[in-house]
């Protein structure tokens, strides 16, 4: 590969930086900033073609790169055409016509690859993003944002600003913990001109207070109004650039929100809009706003129509009618896993959806390690398991809705047996005269989990344990309190008041004397919890949808977390849990947005196929 003999520069939007590469010693010769060392995937020429390669670079953040580029000489034997082109772009700064400049940008200046590594960014697109990024950074400085957004966050704010400027919409779908709220605040705070309308933020009731606090903290100059509760009222005239924060439950029926014309409407935790028939979704779609932004870490939890529903609010029409969407995308992808339909859907949604994963953007975030802990069944479990399967098939599963119900009941029974016979049999621990029946020795998984958690506690580490069953959480609570000694191990579930949950979370995060294990019900641990003190996460039982488990895991794996997080998934070999584990693998392999209702899929199988999935694999017994 011919390596250039002159210094090169490429703008990397995702890093909010200019990458200098080639003969890097020339960086010093021209008083260019050192930047940070890194590796970029660029397309470079080789044998008359261009190919993706790893290129060692020095990344210089735009804030320092722009003045440094401006200061370069107009001509130099050591500077490549790409450097000189970016010098010209930096001198044009925020205004000027990028059209003429685009022709002067050689491919080296815009050699950034797409995700599939089949294409590079066009010169015009690179210039547009460069100018958006420069303009965004200076707008953020001008508004006095009290935070230093990370490079990918500036990129996100620039993306949101471009959408809002066009009067369009989009979905910010970054992984949980990457600071979507800060990016949205960056957008709202920089869209504030005297002639502009107010902004609206809609979020779950439990997050209204959080939003008000965050806006006051990061953008103290931005006026903000909380609009919720029975005595809520909007002032006669809401000042330009004011952010009104309300909840989905208010949005559902409120007239004042509907009558106001908004500049930008932001929908946080937009999974709330996943049902297109719900009153709240219709109310969201009915708002009058110049721009609409949805924020969610899981644009699709179960069905693709959820994605349609969210985009119907932010970008109406882009996916066609709902019926047509089902024919063209949801049906082909969910029923027959069509790769072409998934690729087309991704291409169609791509321009309107920004999704960064933790591994892509946060190099300084400690790693997350996944381990699968294989467990065995005890003789008691194996007997219960085989009996349950035999009984269900002997009775017959029927067809249609009834079949779905019976299959679901069987699946639940099998999962409970894998968890612990006591959960399946409904033993509540007060078992006649003998007092509590011993829990240890009856479930391979239960014993393994208790051993592991005892070991984690011995090491002085902290762990979160997720289960989807309240009864299972109670059993674990009883045993772990016994094994670990000390205070009862806390169990955070939906039956606790919000204040009570807050106290549990606070104790886990800050109190050194609190038990080192926190049990959580998967559904109750919805949003807003920050449990970064844990260095271990244990998934005691499996959820059908990997997205739900990952959302739970992300309670612990957020920015602010200092240590490596280990995620333990317990899988009982040869059982339904094995099947779910395989399902998760294929789901992850499929396109990001694609998911499927797994329980319904099982109900659709013939008796023979279903039996072969569910019957106990004889190798599984201890």
């Amino acid at each position, binding site marked *: 590969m011919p390596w*250039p003999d*002159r210094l*090169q520069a490429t703008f990397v939007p995702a890093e909010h930086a200019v990458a200098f590469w080639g003969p890097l010693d020339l960086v010093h010769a021209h008083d260019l900033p050192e930047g940070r060392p890194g590796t970029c995937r660029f*397309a*470079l*020429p*080789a044998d*008359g*073609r*261009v*190919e*993706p390669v790893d290129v060692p670079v020095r990344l210089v953040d735009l804030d320092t790169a722009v003045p440094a580029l401006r200061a370069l000489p107009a001509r130099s034997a050591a500077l*490549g*055409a*790409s450097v000189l*082109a970016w010098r010209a772009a930096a001198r044009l700064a925020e205004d000027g016509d990028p059209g003429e400049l685009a022709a*002067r*940008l*050689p*491919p*080296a*200046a815009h*050699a950034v690859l*797409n995700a599939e590594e*089949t*294409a*590079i*960014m*066009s010169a*015009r*697109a690179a210039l547009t993003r460069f100018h958006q990024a420069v303009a965004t950074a200076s707008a953020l400085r001008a508004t006095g944002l009290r935070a230093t957004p990370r490079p990918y966050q500036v990129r996100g704010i620039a993306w949101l600003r471009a959408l809002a400027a066009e009067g369009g919409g989009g979905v910010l779908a970054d992984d949980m913990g990457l600071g979507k709220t800060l990016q949205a605040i960056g957008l709202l705070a920089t869209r504030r001109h005297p002639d502009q309308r107010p902004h609206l933020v809609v979020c779950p009731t439990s997050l209204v207070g959080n939003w008000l606090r965050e806006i006051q903290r990061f953008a103290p100059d931005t006026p903000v109004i909380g609009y919720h509760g029975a005595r809520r009222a909007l002032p006669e005239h809401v000042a330009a650039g004011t952010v009104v924060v309300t909840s989905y439950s208010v949005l559902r029926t409120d007239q004042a929100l509907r009558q106001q014309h908004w500049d930008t409407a932001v929908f946080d935790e937009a999974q709330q809009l996943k049902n297109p028939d719900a009153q709240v979704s219709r109310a969201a779609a009915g708002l009058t706003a110049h721009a609409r932004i949805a924020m969610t870490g899981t644009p699709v939890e179960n069905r693709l129509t959820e994605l349609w529903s969210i985009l119907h609010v932010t970008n109406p*029409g*882009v*996916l*066609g009618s709902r019926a*047509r969407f*089902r*024919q*063209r*995308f949801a*049906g*082909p992808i969910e*029923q*027959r*896993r*069509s790769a*072409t*339909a998934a690729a*087309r859907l991704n*291409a*169609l949604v791509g321009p309107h959806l920004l999704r960064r994963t933790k591994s892509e953007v946060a190099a300084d975030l400690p790693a997350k390690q996944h381990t699968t802990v294989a467990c065995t069944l005890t003789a008691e479990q194996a007997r219960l398991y085989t009996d349950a399967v035999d009984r269900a098939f002997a009775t017959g599963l029927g067809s249609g809705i009834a079949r779905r119900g019976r299959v679901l009941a069987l699946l639940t029974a099998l999962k409970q047996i894998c968890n612990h016979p006591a959960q399946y049999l409904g033993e509540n621990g007060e078992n006649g005269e003998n007092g509590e029946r011993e829990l240890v020795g009856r479930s391979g998984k239960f014993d393994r989990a208790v051993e592991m958690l005892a070991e984690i506690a011995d090491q002085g580490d902290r762990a979160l344990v997720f289960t989807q069953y309240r009864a299972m959480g109670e059993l674990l609570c009883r045993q772990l309190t016994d094994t670990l000694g000390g205070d009862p191990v806390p169990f955070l579930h939906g039956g606790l008041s919000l204040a009570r949950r807050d106290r549990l979370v606070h104790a886990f995060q800050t109190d050194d004397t609190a038990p080192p294990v926190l049990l959580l019900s998967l559904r109750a641990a919805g949003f807003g919890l920050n449990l970064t003190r844990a260095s271990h996460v244990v998934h005691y039982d499996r959820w059908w949808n990997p997205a739900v488990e990952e959302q739970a895991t992300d309670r612990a794996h957020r920015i602010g977390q200092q240590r490596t997080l280990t995620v333990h998934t317990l899988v009982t070999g040869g059982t339904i849990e094995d099947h779910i584990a395989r399902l998760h693998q294929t789901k992850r392999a499929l396109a990001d947005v694609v998911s499927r209702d797994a329980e319904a899929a099982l109900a659709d199988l013939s008796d023979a196929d279903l039996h072969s999935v569910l019957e106990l694999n004889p190798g599984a017994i201890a």
Partner: protein
Amino acid sequence: MPDFGATGWGRAWVRAVESTAVTTPNPLLPKARSLARNDAVTTVDIAPGRLTAEVVDRGRHHRVTIDIPLWTGQVRLVADRLVARSLAEHRGLAPGDLPDALAADLASHGIDIAVPTDAQTATCTCASRRRPCSHVLATHYALAQRVDEQPALALTLRAPRRTGHRQGDPDWIDLREVDAAAFYGG
């Protein structure tokens, strides 16, 4: 929802193989559907007047080529007019989609979206003496699926549009189109 022919456009291609005019159903059709359902038909390429695909059957790879006549003369003129009118009426159409009403409109003007197997020239590298073989038929089912996902492909096959067809994403340049010689500029 049917596996094949969820839209009016895909349905036209399903009807072409499951022709109602034939009294005895073709015994190869269940196998052809099964091949298409199990993703045995790969790399379907849809070009003006030609459909090519690779079909994997019991571990063997077969190459299928089907030549389909383009709309010409008066048919093409009428089709172009109907398409233009329909697109003008449906300005908000999602990319790649065409209204089912247009498919019905074409049919009512006697313009066939699909071509029955006896009016095509189809070849397959398999050794079967039955023609069309199950691989050619499977390719039709796979085509119906692709057309369901992207109805505009039905027109690509019969009446390639000269203008107004958006090619690719202007923000990205395919690697094959990047000039390696001018990579570092002057």
